C-alpha cells in the first residue's frame, strides 16, 4: 500500500534521511561561503611592497598642549600662542630640520583666506630659525598648478624672504606609501622627498568650510601630501581625513582662525564668505585643535564625523577643554 502524499506523514527513516540531506546542504553552503570569504576585501591585483616609513614627529615628553589666543595680528597671536605652550624652543632645537606644511591648495589671493596666510609662514619660519633650526622647508602639493598657487597666494615670497626653502612637488618626489591599518591610503603616492630630510613637522592651515567634509582645517591639510588622482577619496572623505591624521603625527600644529571661511568652501572666492573670528590656536593634539576650530565655523562634532573618528582611532581628544588650553588676548 502506497503512503498517501497529501497526508504528510513521515516515517522515522524518511525524517532522518531528509534531515541529513538538509544538514549536509547547509554545511556545504557554509563551507563554500567560508572558502570564498575574503576578510581583506578587494584590492590591487598586485600588492606592491613599500619600504617607506614615516616617523612619529611628535614629542611625547611634552604631553598634550594647546593655546587659544584672540587677536587680529597674526604674528603677535602666533608668538603668544607658542609662548603659552612652552615657547618655540620646546619644539625646535638647534640643528632641527623643519617641514612647514602649509595649505597652498589654490591660486587665491591671501585676503580670501583659502590658503595659509603669508604672515604665518614668515613668522613661523623666523621663529624656527631663531630657535636654531638648520633649515625650514615650506611645501604642499596644491590642487591647482603649484607655481601659480605658491606665487599668487603670497606664500612663496613670504617663505623666501624669511629664509625658508620652497619645495614644489615634482613627479619624482613621490613614493608609494601605506598607512598601517589604513583602508584607503594603501600603496598611494605620497610627497616623500621633503619628509625624508626633516625631523620636525609643523602643520598650519586656515579654518574653512568644505562642501564635502564640512570643514577643512589641520587634519584635512595633510591631503596636500598625497599625489595621484587623490580626488577619488572624496567619496569617503571622512575616512580619508582620519587616515591622514594617522599618517602624520606632527610636532606642532597652528590653526589660523583670524579670518574664517564660513561658506562656499574650500575655494570661497568672495570676501562675503568670510567672518573675522580673530582667533589663533596652537597645539600638539591635532584632533583637539580641529575640535575647537569647529566652534569658529558654528559646527558641532556631529557635523564633522572625522573628528570623532580620529578620536576613536586614538589620535587625540575631541574634548579640547580637557587639555586646559592656555587662553590669551593680544590687543
Amino acid at each position, binding site marked *: 500500500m*502506497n503512503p498517501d*502524499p497529501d497526508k504528510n506523514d513521515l516515517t522515522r527513516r524518511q525524517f532522518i534521511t531528509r534531515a541529513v540531506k538538509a544538514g549536509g546542504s547547509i554545511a556545504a553552503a557554509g563551507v563554500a561561503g567560508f572558502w570564498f570569504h575574503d576578510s581583506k576585501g578587494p584590492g590591487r591585483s598586485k600588492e606592491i611592497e613599500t619600504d617607506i616609513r614615516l616617523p612619529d614627529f611628535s614629542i611625547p615628553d611634552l604631553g598634550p598642549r594647546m593655546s587659544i589666543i584672540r587677536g587680529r595680528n597674526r604674528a603677535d597671536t602666533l608668538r603668544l600662542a607658542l609662548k603659552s605652550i612652552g615657547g618655540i624652543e620646546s619644539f625646535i632645537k638647534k640643528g632641527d630640520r623643519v617641514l612647514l606644511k602649509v595649505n597652498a591648495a589654490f591660486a587665491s*589671493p591671501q585676503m580670501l583666506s583659502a590658503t595659509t596666510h603669508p604672515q604665518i609662514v614668515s613668522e613661523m619660519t623666523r621663529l624656527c630659525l631663531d630657535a636654531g633650526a638648520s633649515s625650514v622647508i615650506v611645501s604642499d602639493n596644491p590642487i591647482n*598648478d603649484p607655481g601659480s598657487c605658491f606665487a*599668487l597666494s603670497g606664500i612663496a615670497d613670504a617663505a623666501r624672504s624669511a629664509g625658508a626653502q620652497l619645495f614644489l*612637488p615634482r613627479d619624482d618626489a613621490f613614493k608609494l606609501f601605506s598607512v598601517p591599518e589604513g583602508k584607503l591610503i594603501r600603496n598611494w603616492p605620497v610627497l616623500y622627498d621633503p619628509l625624508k630630510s626633516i625631523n620636525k613637522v609643523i602643520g598650519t592651515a586656515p579654518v574653512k568650510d568644505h562642501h564635502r567634509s564640512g570643514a577643512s582645517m589641520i587634519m584635512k591639510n595633510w591631503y596636500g601630501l598625497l599625489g595621484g588622482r587623490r580626488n577619488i577619496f572624496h567619496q*569617503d572623505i571622512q575616512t580619508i581625513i582620519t587616515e591622514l591624521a594617522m599618517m602624520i603625527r606632527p610636532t606642532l600644529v597652528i590653526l589660523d582662525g583670524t579670518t574664517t571661511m564660513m561658506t562656499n568652501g574650500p575655494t570661497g572666492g568672495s570676501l562675503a564668505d568670510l567672518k573675522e573670528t580673530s582667533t589663533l590656536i596652537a597645539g600638539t593634539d591635532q584632533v583637539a585643535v580641529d575640535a575647537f576650530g569647529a566652534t569658529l565655523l558654528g559646527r558641532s562634532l556631529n557635523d564633522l564625523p572625522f573628528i570623532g573618528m580620529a578620536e576613536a582611532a586614538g589620535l587625540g581628544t575631541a574634548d579640547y577643554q580637557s587639555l586646559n588650553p592656555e587662553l590669551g588676548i593680544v590687543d
Partner: protein
Amino acid sequence: MIRENQKYSRQQTSSSLAILFILILTATGIFLAQFNYNPAVLQKDLFLSPIANGKDSSPTVPAESVIPLPPDMVPLTLPESFDAQSLSDKIDGKAELYLSAGFISLTSQRYKAKKGSNLWIEAYLYDMGNGQNAFAVFSAQRREGAAMLDLTPYAYRTQNALFLVHGSFYIEMIASEATDLAFDTMKLLAENFIHNTVTQTVAIPEKDLFPVQGLVADSISLISADAFGFDRLDQVYTAEYELGQERLMAFLSRRPETRAAQDLASAYQKFLETFGGQSLDANLAIKDAKLVEILETYEVIFSCGPFVAGVREAASKEQAMNLAVQLYDKLKAAP
C-alpha cells in the same frame, strides 16, 4: 516491502520553489553588487595617472584670452579647461555642487593689469548645459545681502567679485583686491563675454508662481537634486518668506504629469515620517494636503496639477497653512 512514494504535497513543492526563488534573487543581487565596490577602497589604476608635475601655467609668450580683454589687461596665465572628470582638480570638494546640477565644462583664465597695479582677476566660465542648471548653481551660492547688478537678469556683486548667469553659463569673476578699479575691470570683462557669447535667454517661469506677499527679494533658488535630503525631490524651486516675525520657505517642482506629482507628495510625506515627522489633520482648502510636524516646525505638502509644492520650516501651523493656500491659489491659476 513498501517503496517510498516520492510524491510530495503541493504545499511542500510551493515552499521549495519559493525558497529557491529567494536564493536565486539573493545570488543575483550579490552578483550585481560586486561590480559596485567603493573605488576609493579598490584604488583602480587611476592613481597611476600622471602626478602634478609643477608645470607653471604662466605663459612665456603672449597667450590667447578666452574673453576679449580691455586694453589695460593682459593674460596672466594660459586658459585651463576642465570636464566632469577633472573639475575637482580645479575646485576640489565644491565640484559635487556643479556635477549634480548638469555641469558640462569649465574654462578659466587669469588676467593682470598691464602696468601700475598689482591687480589680477580670475574668470571662471562654467558651461552648465542650460539656463536652469546655471541658475541652480548661481542661486545655491548666492551671497546674502549682495548688491544686484543689471548685467543680466541674474547677476550680483560682492566687494571683490562678480557672479552672474548668461544663457547656459554661470560666470564668476574674482579679483585680488576689493577696489573700484577691480570692479570696473571685472564688469568690463563680464560685458565682453556676454556680447561675444551667443546663447539662449534664461527663462525661469517658476519664479512667477510664488506668492508675492512677504517674499524675500532675490531669495528664489533652484535645487537640482536631493532637495531637503530626499533623493526623489529634484528640480525644486524654493523661496524664502518673512511673515511677521517668522521666516519660512515655500517650494514647488513641476513633474511630468499630475499622477507623478501626487505620488511624490505622498512619498515626501512618508519620508518625513521616517525621520520622526507626525502627520496632523490638515483641514485646509487644498485637496489631499498633508500637514506634518517635524523637529518643532511645520510642513505642508500638496500637489496641484503637475506641481508638487508646499511650505516648510514654519514655526507656526497657521503661517504654514496660510502661505500654502496662497501658493495653491497661484498654482491653480498657472498655465
